């Protein structure tokens, strides 16, 4: 097995919160993405997906743990980080916000070329635009973001990333702000780019259905921690963790489960429950578990899932011997 293109090892991100409470936005996350793989990071809004994505790109300082790129620690020097940023690129949810409203399409796409002084600017910009399906590229050079459709804007954002010929693309909710009609096109574009360019892709989404459509592997995140991870077919066909099951039960493409509505408050990273962090909302626990398991749910912390090939979940009901 080659070294993962991108790997988080026990990564922590803490934000100072109100009244001295610390929000553990990312709480010991271990995740690896192999070269050429598409991994979907799934979870409710606020569970720390975007923060983790930024950590992986060196945009967010960590409070602990390590990020490895191709087996090497993420550079910390300014020059090293700059070089890394050529290799890994970011795509965000809202393409209108991702583009400087006063820059033309050409300037937006050319920015990376200029930052890294790669040269041959016009040809590269035209190529990148053509690659994302904006043809003929010259027709888009002088346009401004507000003159484009949502789908075209996201294509421009993707072109701006591709122009640097990255190995890794991190896409944070790349289609959730787009019209349903263009979502498919943008996803198809990402998959085509992966096939043509051998890109490694980490797609962050709150939508399991989307993950199902494009990912090789799925990692499910809850309150700053990955609680289930595995090959897409296995996770979706045989979800292990009660949280994954609840998420899956409301995906229309799957719809073979009774919808499970999660009770309780949306989780707050500033007060992570003891024991299993999901226990206050866990339908399995609410439905009744043997006493010793239920006690463990409330009191015994679960281990961090190691990065490995199989399908794994962190839940006491699956394995009563699980411990921290």
């Amino acid at each position, binding site marked *: 097995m080659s070294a993962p293109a991108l790997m988080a090892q026990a990564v922590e991100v803490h934000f100072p919160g109100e009244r001295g409470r610390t929000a553990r936005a990312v709480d010991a996350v271990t995740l690896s993405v192999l070269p050429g793989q598409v991994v979907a990071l799934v979870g409710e809004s606020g569970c720390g997906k975007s923060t983790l994505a*930024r950590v992986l*790109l060196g*945009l967010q300082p960590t409070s602990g743990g390590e990020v490895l790129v191709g087996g090497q620690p993420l550079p910390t020097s*300014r020059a090293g*980080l*700059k070089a890394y*940023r*050529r290799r890994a*690129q*970011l795509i*965000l*949810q*809202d393409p209108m*916000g*991702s*583009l*400087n*409203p*006063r820059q033309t399409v050409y300037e937006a796409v050319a*920015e*990376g070329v200029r*930052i*890294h002084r790669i040269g041959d600017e016009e040809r590269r910009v035209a190529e990148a635009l053509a690659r994302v399906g904006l043809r003929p590229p010259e027709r888009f050079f002088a346009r*401004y973001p*507000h*003159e484009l459709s949502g789908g075209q804007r996201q294509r421009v*954002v993707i072109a*701006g*990333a591709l122009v*640097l010929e990255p190995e890794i693309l991190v896409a944070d909710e790349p289609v959730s702000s787009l019209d349903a009609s263009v979502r498919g096109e943008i996803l198809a574009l990402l998959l085509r780019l992966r096939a043509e360019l051998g890109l490694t892709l980490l797609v962050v989404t709150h939508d399991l259905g989307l993950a199902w459509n494009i990912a090789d592997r799925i990692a499910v995140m809850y309150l700053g921690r990955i609680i289930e991870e595995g090959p897409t077919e296995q996770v979706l066909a045989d979800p292990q963790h009660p949280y994954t099951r609840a998420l899956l039960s409301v995906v229309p493409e799957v719809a073979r489960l009774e919808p499970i509505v999660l009770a309780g408050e949306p989780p707050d990273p500033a007060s992570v429950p003891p024991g299993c962090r999901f226990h206050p909302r866990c339908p399995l626990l609410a439905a009744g578990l043997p006493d010793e398991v239920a006690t463990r749910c409330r009191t015994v912390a679960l281990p961090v899932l190691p990065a490995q090939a199989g399908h794994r979940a962190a839940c006491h009901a699956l394995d009563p011997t699980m411990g921290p």
Partner: protein
Amino acid sequence: MRPGTRYALRSVASGLGTLLFVVIFNFFLFRMLPGDPIGLYTRGRNVPPEQIEALRAELDRPLVEQFLGYLANPFSSTINSARFNQPVWTLIGERVGATLLLVGTAIVLASIVGTWLGIRSAWQRGQRFDNVSTGLTLTLYSMPEFWLGMILLIVFGVGVGFLPGMFPIGGIITPGVDPSSLAGILDIAWHMVLPVTTLTAVYLAEYALVMRASLLDEMGQDYLVVARAKGLMDKVVRRRHAVPNAMLPTITLIFMNLGFVISGAITVETVFSWPGLGLLSYDALRGPDIALLQAIFLLFSIGVILANVAADLVYAVLDPRVRA
């Protein structure tokens, strides 16, 4: 027609419309005042009989004829100022230079210093510089300008305690000094120090607060994250993307304030006996010197209208979204 051209024509047309309204309104407003018009215009002052004759000749003409004459050239009032017994536009012409010098200098200084304070405050949000600067600007913002002017006048002009008065307490130049000589220019600059400081202090708060708010707003934008992800250093991201975009509201504000260049300094000019249009307005109001007020009113309105059109046009040049 290109959208930009249409936008420009629309704002110029609306400016012209307002201008026409003001010109007409200005004529009738002062002719609709109740009472004997001659008495009104002369206000019981000892006006030479030939001037009263001229006034009667003007006011006895049919209203339509007067109006058409006025429309043909609104700046050629045939009625003299009662107070100064001079044609009103001659008076205004003599005073306009002093006001432009005073307020123009203050606006330039205030916009530069205010913008700089706003930028630094936003960059160091919540830190000491921000707290001090924002506290100071808010204090200045809420301070009446005549009050600040009086304080500066007393402390630095008159002198308190062992502190001698350093700066002239009024006027624009020491009598007898030739304003076109080097000594004259320095003398004018010396006279400008206190009034310019007062006006600058009062104006800069607005620029600092607007710039700070607008930059903070801009700094939350996604495209800054994208630019960082492309390898641009944080500092450069702010300088290249955030600050120019955040400048838009400030630049508009500067242009709109230019409209008040001629009218804005009534109190400060009065406090410092600065022989500009502000002091002239004050004298005209005390009369009231109707003919002079009428001309001043017209001039101030035109200033504001032109500045608004200019602000519109500048905004359109700077922000592609407006041109759509």
